[in-house]
């Protein structure tokens, strides 16, 4: 097979073309161009599928990759090399990711044509959707951190537009702004990391970075007292945290459900959030070198567990799904942290499949019933049979029931976490990682089945609906009217077929070749697990002195001299592991434990919401429930303390400072502001910090406020002076 | 490498003698040659400018069935000298509210902008001071000093008439620069270079070899250029910045004596330059029909041909001034932006397509079948 630019570029370009056409001429096209968007993504899918087929169904070769480069600009002089290459880098992981993204996006587009029908924002929605997808595809294709950053930012912009697409709703506007601003925090760090890498290595190409790691160029360099590798790895991971909504920066993702449900599906499943995991995986050797994997694992575990606890008390069906996304992202990040590269990536893929399906199902429900509060739903099983089937499959998958995909990937992550936490001889405190992971798994099973049972089982509660929205005239006739309204769900191509296709891929054997995910029960005569064989952490020493491929070169897989994969069953490529039996036993224990935990969660949900023999525990722990319903007060903390008290109050203080009106009232006001700040910080200390267990934040808040007070003066020239000062201090402190 | 008059002269033997005379110092010799020639050109242009005032009066008198100046010298020919002496001996008045520094600077800017364009004007094949690679582009760029001088002159006087005239003048000059530039672009496209040597060299001596008749678009472009150039030099019917009946005397209301003289001189020389550019861009420039050998007499013939074409155009400019009435301000703007600019862009596109479709051949070449 030959690979030219012409066979790769359409993956990225065809959605871009659709975006341009829809943006300018969308209103004049029939159906406002939604067919064009869908078709363009489908074209991407065809091209990706070709690459996928070639990479996967060809001989298994882990080390094969396509890398095409051209120099965008070159600022090097003498022996100092500073250049930015642009190019395409496709290895097995990218091939799998491409086909997943384009495939899921195609189905989501198809579904959206049904969902957004007759919506006032129909045209605008189909402008941003292809751009969003193309940015993700471009991100996957890109061969360096710089172009990755460009696509990263395009995605940020698109998510902003998609979340706030109903721009008449104030909440949607706020949510979009929140998403944009929160991810900015991470992006700043990502850019910092990229620039730091660029100034040191002279290139931000993945391949060059791998080679530099292998050659030991990172050794002995320090920035601000910490090792350079740690610094850059931390910066890049902080960027990933912003995008993948990890623990301190998670607040935007649940609000992102303000947009249309298919948009949420795209944000939560195939694109955007997985970008963070993607960059963590790409930079995995750097993370290992920088020795921050424990940090990654802890952050992932905290997110996985914390989000799961919040999801337990949510009543909005989309909110449950949003928090479950957060929780699953936590698992992926945890997987990266505990070193199960392969399983983390597999979880990205499987999660994309079932989460897209779940969101689309939720969209189907919402569009049919016009209700998304779970206590007002129920008994929809009869009315929405296809949706029910699809959603059940996905719920089984996400809950970690054997034979389904979620079990395979999550179980492997948990197995590795178990090994990492207890047996690998790490710091004993890290045992918190598998503990939180397993607890989160149990909660996942519980809340997902809670959602299923409240939505599809029991009696139909929709006729209690009495607040007046646009469908009041249906409600007036009560139950029958609603039954009439939704009774006729027949197999609609645009509504149900995407769900059913996606639900097929919730089965586990697609991904591991066996029914169970363990080493028995092979189907289709699969010789080995293709996924595990193909995806491995990059072996950096391979990239030393790699030849640079020009952009116009034609690749053929036949021409490449490949060593075929020699896969060792449990240890991957790393050769015999001394702790092999420990790893094996950890996986066995993990599998059994997770099955038990999952079924326990399902059983508990069954008891609570179907049998009714156990009362929901919300009444037993009112305080905890309140904390959970308020999402651990994170939003309040950010808005009330950091922004309102911090920025706004102190800006007012600064207005005084600027104008030079220095009188008693101002001083008093200043003191009052300070008192309020101190109180809120104290409250924060007592309530939040102790609850979560991170110390010292309160003090940090006070200091932070003090700095912000001075800096946020609103005087542009003052900002400029600060900019120069920061630049100068950077240059004077860092020895260039 | 840019061709210059020095590099042209260095082909001849006497250059070596001169070089020996200057102690083999190339720099000093080149400087001397340039300086002398520049003095000659400026003197010539000043004379042409002076004669321009005379010619203008004579021609206008002719058109209006009057006699015109006839007292000073034979046929009033010395009138221009009298004018010059009058300007020098007039008292120099500056309004006390004026911005003094800028009041001094404004005529200088006009003068610099006009004189610097003379450096690239192709008088003859060898007699072109510097055939810069960016020739016509340089000319367009450097002549925008004039607009600045007009604006600053109007501003610095701190008189309402001047200010209005300066604002109008600057906005008129910059507006009409666009159609002119785009028309020139069409010619650059046809010629395949920006240097005057290239542009003139692509044409021939006979009319069918001129860019004017190269294709229909270039033909239109000539007229767009002509109208735009008239407006850029503030000539009637576009003399709004100095419209006597509206603005007294426009941006130079407050200027007297020598400084007014500089403005006037700059204006007349600019008209000459603009005509010269039109002649060399569209009308074949200095090409002598049928002669391609390069000897000094031919150079003289080239000079004569160039001056003839330019002066004919100069006559046309004066003719237009005394024939057409002045435009209104809104008409001025709509002529520029709604007629000339779209037409100029259309011409540019037309020329580009012509180049590709007919492979750069002119109509005559297509018809006559020559290559």
């Amino acid at each position, binding site marked *: 097979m030959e690979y030219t630019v012409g066979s790769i570029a359409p993956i990225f370009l065809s959605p871009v073309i659709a975006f341009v056409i829809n943006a300018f001429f969308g209103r004049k096209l029939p159906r406002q161009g939604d067919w064009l968007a869908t078709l363009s993504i489908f074209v991407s899918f065809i091209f990706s599928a070709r690459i996928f087929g070639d990479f996967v169904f060809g001989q298994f070769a882990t080390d094969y990759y396509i890398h095409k480069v051209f120099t965008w600009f070159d600022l090097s*002089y003498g022996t100092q090399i500073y250049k930015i290459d642009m190019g395409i880098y496709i290895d097995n992981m990218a091939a799998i990711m491409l086909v997943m993204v384009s495939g899921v996006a195609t189905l989501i587009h198809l579904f959206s044509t049904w969902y957004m029908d007759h919506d006032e924002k129909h045209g605008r929605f189909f402008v941003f959707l292809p751009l969003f997808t193309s940015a993700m595809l471009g991100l996957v294709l890109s061969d360096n951190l710089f172009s990755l950053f460009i696509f990263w930012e395009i995605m940020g912009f698109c998510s902003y537009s998609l979340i706030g697409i109903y721009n008449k709703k104030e909440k949607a506007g706020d949510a979009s702004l929140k998403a944009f601003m929160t991810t900015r925090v991470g992006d700043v760090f990502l850019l910092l990391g990229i620039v730091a890498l660029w100034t040191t290595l002279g290139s931000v190409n993945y391949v060059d970075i791998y080679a530099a790691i292998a050659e030991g160029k990172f050794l002995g360099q320090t920035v601000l007292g910490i090792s350079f590798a740690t610094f850059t790895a931390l910066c890049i991971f902080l960027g990933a945290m912003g995008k993948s909504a990890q623990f301190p920066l998670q607040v935007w993702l649940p609000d992102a459900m303000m947009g249309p449900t298919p948009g949420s599906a795209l944000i939560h499943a195939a694109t955007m959030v997985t970008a963070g995991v993607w960059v963590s995986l790409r930079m995995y050797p750097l993370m290992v070198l920088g020795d921050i994997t424990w940090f990654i694992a802890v952050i992932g575990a905290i997110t996985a567990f914390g989000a799961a606890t919040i999801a337990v008390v949510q009543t909005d069906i989309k909110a449950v799904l949003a928090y479950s996304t957060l929780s699953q992202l936590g698992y992926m990040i945890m997987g990266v942290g505990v070193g199960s590269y392969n399983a983390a990536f597999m979880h990205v893929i499987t999660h994309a499949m079932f989460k897209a399906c779940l969101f689309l199902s939720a969209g189907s429900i919402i569009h049919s019933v016009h209700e998304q509060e779970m206590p007002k739903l129920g008994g929809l099983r009869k009315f929405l049979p296809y949706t029910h089937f699809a959603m059940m499959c996905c719920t089984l998958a996400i809950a970690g029931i054997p034979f389904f995909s979620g079990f395979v990937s999550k179980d492997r992550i948990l197995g590795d976490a178990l090994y990492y936490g207890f047996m690998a001889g790490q710091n004993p405190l890290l045992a918190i990682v598998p503990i939180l992971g397993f607890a989160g798994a149990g909660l996942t099973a519980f809340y997902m089945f809670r959602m299923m049972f409240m939505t599809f089982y029991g009696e139909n509660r929709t006729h209690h609906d009495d607040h007046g929205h646009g469908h009041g005239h249906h409600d007036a006739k009560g139950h029958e009217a609603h039954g009439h309204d939704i009774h006729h769900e027949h197999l609609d191509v645009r509504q149900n077929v995407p769900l059913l296709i996606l639900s097929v891929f919730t089965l586990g054997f697609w991904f591991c070749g066996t029914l169970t995910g363990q080493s028995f029960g092979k189907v289709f005569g699969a010789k080995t697990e293709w996924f595990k064989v193909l995806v491995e952490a990059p072996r950096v020493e391979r990239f030393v002195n790699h030849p640079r491929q020009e952009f116009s070169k034609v690749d053929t897989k036949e021409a490449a001299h490949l060593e075929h994969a020699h896969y060792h069953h449990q240890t991957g490529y790393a050769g015999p592991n001394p702790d092999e039996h420990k790893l094996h036993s950890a996986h066995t224990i993990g599998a059994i434990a997770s099955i038990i935990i999952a079924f326990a969660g399902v059983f508990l949900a069954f008891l609570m919401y179907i049998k009714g023999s156990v009362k929901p525990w919300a009444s037993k722990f009112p305080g905890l429930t309140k904390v959970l319903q308020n999402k651990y007060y994170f939003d309040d903390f950010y808005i009330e303390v950091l922004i309102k008290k911090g920025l706004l109050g102190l800006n*007012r203080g600064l207005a005084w400072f600027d104008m030079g009106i220095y009188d008693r009232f101002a001083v008093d006001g200043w003191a009052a502001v300070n008192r309020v700040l101190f109180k809120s910080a104290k409250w924060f200390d007592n309530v939040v910090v102790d609850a979560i267990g991170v110390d010292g934040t309160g003090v940090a808040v006070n200091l932070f406020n003090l700095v912000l007070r001075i800096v946020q003066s*609103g005087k542009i020239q003052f900002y400029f002076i600060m900019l120069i000062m920061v630049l100068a201090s950077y240059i004077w402190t860092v020895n260039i | 490498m840019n061709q210059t008059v020095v590099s042209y002269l260095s082909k001849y033997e006497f250059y070596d003698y001169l070089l020996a005379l200057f102690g083999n110092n190339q720099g000093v010799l080149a400087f001397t040659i340039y300086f002398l020639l520049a003095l000659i050109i400026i003197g010539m242009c000043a004379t042409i400018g002076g004669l321009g005032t005379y010619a203008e009066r004579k021609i206008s008198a002719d058109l209006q069935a009057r006699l015109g100046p006839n007292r000073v010298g034979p046929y009033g020919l010395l009138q221009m000298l009298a004018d010059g002496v009058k300007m020098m001996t007039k008292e120099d008045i500056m309004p006390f509210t004026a911005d003094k520094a800028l009041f001094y600077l404004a005529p200088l800017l006009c003068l610099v902008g006009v004189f610097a364009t003379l450096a690239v004007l192709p008088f003859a094949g060898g007699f072109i001071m510097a055939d810069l690679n960016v020739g016509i582009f340089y000319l367009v760029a450097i002549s925008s000093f004039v607009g600045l001088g007009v604006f600053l002159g109007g501003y610095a006087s701190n008189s309402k008439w001047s200010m209005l005239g300066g604002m109008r003048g600057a906005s008129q000059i910059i507006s009409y620069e666009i159609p002119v530039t785009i028309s020139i672009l069409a010619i650059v496209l046809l010629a395949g270079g920006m240097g005057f040597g290239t542009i003139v060299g692509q044409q021939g001596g006979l009319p069918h070899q001129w860019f004017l008749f190269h294709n229909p678009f270039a033909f239109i472009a000539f007229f767009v250029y002509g109208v735009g150039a008239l407006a850029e030099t503030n000539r009637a019917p576009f003399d709004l910045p100095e419209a006597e009946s509206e603005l007294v005397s426009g941006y130079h209301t407050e200027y007297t004596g020598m400084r007014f003289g500089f403005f006037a001189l700059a204006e007349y020389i600019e008209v000459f330059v603009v005509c010269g550019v039109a002649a060399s861009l569209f009308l074949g420039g200095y090409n002598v029909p049928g002669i391609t050998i390069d000897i000094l007499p031919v150079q003289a013939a080239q000079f004569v041909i160039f001056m003839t074409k330019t002066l004919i155009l100069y006559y046309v400019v004066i003719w237009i001034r005394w024939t057409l009435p002045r435009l209104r301000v809104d008409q001025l703007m709509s002529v520029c932006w709604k007629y000339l600019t779209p037409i100029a862009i259309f011409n540019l596109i037309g020329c580009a397509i012509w180049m590709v479709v007919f492979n750069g051949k002119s109509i005559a070449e297509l018809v006559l079948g020559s290559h």
Partner: protein
Amino acid sequence: MMSLASYLIISLILFVVGLMVMISRKNIVAILLGIELILNAAALNFVAYSRYVTNNLDGHIFSLFIIVIAAAEAAVGLAIVIRFFQIKETIHVDEATQLRN
């Protein structure tokens, strides 16, 4: 006399003067003048490097685009200044406080 270093020094002086103009002036148009100086310093550096270090004309292209962008920036910036003046009757930079609260 004419070496890369002298060009770099001139551009540095230009940059610093532009910086000082930007900080010490309170008139927004004057601040824009400072920005023009800074942009010119950058463009001059590009061309100097293009002559003395690299063998290609990429530096010229860069400075060409810097000039283009400077023109676009001046156009938009001055439009904003004029609009600001129409609303607030001032072009003092410290009175541009509409986005503060």
